[in-house]
């Protein structure tokens, strides 16, 4: 169980949740205590994920730090967590981003205890997705990661300037485009649409595998019918793809990123979009068929193989289209948001090569992009606090006035380039 008897992945996952509970029940009206609880609990996750990262046996590879508790035996649902090379990196990324995010939100004034509680709950969801092996629990965590977003953006977000124009101008006016409520609702509807696809996919696999277990490891042993695989892969691709920002289902992401408060933007672009790519890689692609048995991942080798052209094509569109759109933006947050769309294309293109090198590149890109986007959004938050604007053409001379921010931004840019 766990690592030397310590359920380490459980600790990483649930520490922020405990923090959220502590905040709600003990730290009401003590803003400093709220922040300290947040910092300590996410700090625990950070330290432990570093430990997991270092303790992971790269020679043995595969899933390690395995824990299992049966939840609903008749349906084969259990709390089953483990980490392999991919989830390891992403867990580390998540803990770095949330730990910095806690400090990036230090100046949140309105209802800070609810803000921090929701943020921490959300992070528990993210950690849970990355470590769960039971698809049912995986899905629960996934929903947990998506729902607090609505409140975080809708309450603490900021509105952007979008002028309704073009032939759909009336529709945009009617939906209230640009406001934070609009962004929050759009994001939630989109992501829930995605989860509907995912749920159908998971249930289809569950039934096809005999209806006795939701465990990833057992499903991995089952050989699914190629036709089923083809359809289920498509379901997963669309469902997770929404979260990964695949074109043309990406438009929630710039609006969402731009409206979200700093820490949420960081988490959102840095980690949440990776959830989508992770889902596609983990549940969809089976690389074992193409030479990497030891990674032991993916359930749908044939399905992947049939659709990989689509994944690759859309990923390429994402890269170019996202980059061009980013160039056209004048709001700093939109620039970074579109660059995320572009970078997620790179991740999916790497995965779509179905080679070890491509997958390694994709995972590394997820980590690098997560860190750098997190940095960008944190910096934009700081800039906004000082300049009260995000319009790039109203800015200038930051190198003289805020050399630290300018340097960090240049570093991020160098990383992106």
């Amino acid at each position: 169980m766990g690592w030397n008897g310590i359920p380490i992945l459980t600790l990483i996952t649930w520490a922020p949740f405990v923090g959220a509970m502590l905040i709600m029940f003990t730290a009401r009206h003590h803003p400093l205590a709220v922040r300290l609880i947040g910092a300590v609990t996410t700090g625990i996750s950070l330290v432990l994920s570093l430990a997991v990262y270092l303790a992971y046996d790269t020679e043995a590879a595969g899933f390690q730090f395995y824990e299992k508790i049966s939840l609903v035996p008749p349906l084969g649902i259990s709390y089953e967590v483990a980490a392999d090379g991919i989830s390891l990196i992403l867990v580390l990324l998540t803990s770095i981003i949330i730990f910095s995010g806690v400090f990036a939100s230090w100046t949140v004034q309105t209802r800070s205890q609810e803000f921090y509680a929701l943020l921490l709950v959300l992070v528990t969801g993210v950690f849970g997705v990355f470590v769960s092996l039971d698809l049912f629990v995986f899905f629960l965590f996934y929903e947990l990661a998506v729902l607090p977003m609505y409140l975080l953006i809708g309450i603490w977000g900021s509105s952007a300037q979008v002028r309704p124009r073009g032939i759909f101008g009336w529709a945009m006016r009617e939906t209230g485009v640009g406001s934070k409520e609009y962004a929050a609702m759009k994001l939630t509807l989109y992501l829930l649409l995605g989860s509907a696809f995912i749920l159908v996919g998971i249930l289809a696999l569950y039934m096809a595998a005999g209806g006795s277990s939701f465990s990833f490891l057992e499903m991995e042993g089952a050989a699914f019918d190629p036709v089923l695989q083809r359809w289920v892969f498509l379901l997963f691709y669309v469902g997770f793809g929404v979260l990964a920002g695949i074109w043309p289902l990406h438009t929630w992401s710039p609006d969402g990123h731009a409206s979200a408060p700093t820490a949420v933007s960081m988490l959102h672009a840095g980690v949440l979009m990776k959830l989508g790519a992770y889902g596609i890689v983990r549940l969809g692609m089976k690389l074992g068929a193409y030479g990497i048995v030891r990674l032991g991942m993916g359930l749908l080798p044939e399905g992947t193989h049939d659709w990989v052209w689509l994944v690759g094509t859309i990923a390429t569109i994402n890269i170019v289209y996202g980059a061009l759109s980013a160039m056209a933006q004048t709001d700093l947050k939109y620039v970074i948001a579109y660059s995320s769309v572009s970078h997620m294309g790179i991740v999916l293109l790497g995965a779509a090569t179905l080679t070890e090198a491509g997958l390694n590149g994709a995972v590394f890109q997820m980590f690098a992009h997560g860190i750098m986007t997190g940095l960008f959004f944190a910096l934009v938050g700081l800039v906004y606090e000082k300049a009260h604007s995000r319009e790039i053409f109203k800015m200038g001379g930051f190198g003289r006035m805020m050399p630290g921010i300018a340097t960090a931004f240049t570093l991020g840019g160098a990383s992106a380039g």
Partner: protein
Amino acid sequence: MNAGTLALAALGLPFCSFVLLAVVPPLRRAGRVAGALSIAAIGGSLLASLVLGRTLPRESVELTWPWLPAEGGPMATVGILVDHLAASMLVLVALVSFLVQLYSLGYLEHETPPALGRYYAYHSLFAFSMLGLVLASNFLQMFIFWELVGLCSYLLIGFWYTKPEAARAAVKAFWVTKAGDLGFIIGIVLLWGQAGTFQFSGLFQMAADRTLPTAGLALIMFLIYLGAVGKSAQFPLHVWLPDAMEGPTPVSALIHAATMVAAGVYLVSRVYPLFLLTPDVLALIGWVGAFTALLAATLGLVQADIKRVLAYSTVSQLGFMMAALGAGAAAAGFFHLLTHGLFKALLFLGAGAVIHAVGTNDIWKMGRLYRAMPQTAIVFLVGTLALAGIWPFAGFFSKDAVLAGVWEGGLTTPFLMLALTVFLTAFYMFRVVFVVFFGNRPAEGHPHDVPLVMSGPLWILAILTLGWGISLAASGGEEKAHGPEWIPWLASGLAVAGIVFAWLTYQKRAVSADALARTFRPLYVAALSKFWLDDLYGGIYRGLLLGFSRLVGWVDRYLVDGLVNLASAWTLRWGDGLRRIQTGRAQDYLYGVAFGLLLVIVWSYWR
């Protein structure tokens, strides 16, 4: 120590210095201390490279470590490759870096300590990247260092980032070279697709065994050459180099004269066995090189900024090197790279001394400086004579070798262009010399000669330029050139003619410069507006790229997202419509129930 260890030491020292300066802020903010650390590190590199150059075995030394894992062995490796080419380049880079960093202590004495520390941090990073580029043993690694030197160039051009021109020039340099790098990386990947390796030694082996697939190789090598076009400022991507002069003068001396801009030439020399398989691409390189040389020389004629004159002369000399490579005389091209690195660094540092003393770049505000700055005048004259190609300065021998190589390579028209360039080079360089150091009007202010920390590097470079030339002359000097007897005479004659003409025009005033400008009016106007290339690129950028991105941005916001909003607006409308049947009045609902009941009854009867 063996060659591999020495090379790694030369590479590692500047890196350690950079890391220390980057992560220990108090050290960086100490300014001069940071400078001392960086200078010590590059001094160590210089020492290691010198020892390496002396003790290098005949065959090349290669060290590799596996890197990108993939099925069936690593996809790429990291490593170093030391042969005579790399070792010579290593010495040049370390030497010029060392001297420039030393000189900067004097040149940037008025900077604040944190700015000075930042400057030296960048310099250490640059030294590391450039040495890494030189030592790279495969294309992928070379590309990484290639980009790193580009980044350093960006950072150092924009060192005075509060000056808008400097910030703009930095971005321009970055983007224009990136345009070439795009071809470079595509070429690398395509080559990998063909050959299955990034490794130079493996590729050379394949080239020697004739096992390298030749289909599409010309395109691949052309794409790789594009990287060199950007970096080495070949036509039509030369536009960034003159603007890069906005950076501090020592930076121009190091990066934009001696080392980084020569990286393109080094790249072509490095993978010359591959270029030899594609004679068409080589011929193109030769033609473009010669054309660049001539074009840049005409541009150099009309500049009033002393650094811009030198910048165009750098572009022009890089054209010489490329022309030699294209004509098949790789050794001559590389030889010119080495000598040019020395005397062009000398010229830039000399110009820096002048700028430091006078406080302006405009040659028309200078004059008679040989009185106030005799030392600078002498070393600048040494550099100019070397650049003009006068015996027995080092430049004479390398230029002669290039001309002979191009003639032997059968590129007659490029040869003529280069010969004309020799004349123009002597003319525009001595124009600067006569106007700045002699002339009739004294300069404004009270110029003075530079302190030892600046004059020392100048003298070292001057002595090397002259000493190398003399040693070549003493040893016969003709070992590098195999061309006909008349070429050195022709080149010297043209250079002397250029000098005399410049003397007549700018010293004696026997020939009016205005009259010259009138005679060659179309050319003069075109050169003044840089042949409108900058405007063309500006138009392309604004019109095509920005226009296209705006279009995509608009499509995304108003069509793709518009459709999303359309769906949502329709949902809202339908919902609103359906809401109206819920009136809240009980009798309406009763009517509904009754009507439904009626329908059910009718339906069950009909059935």
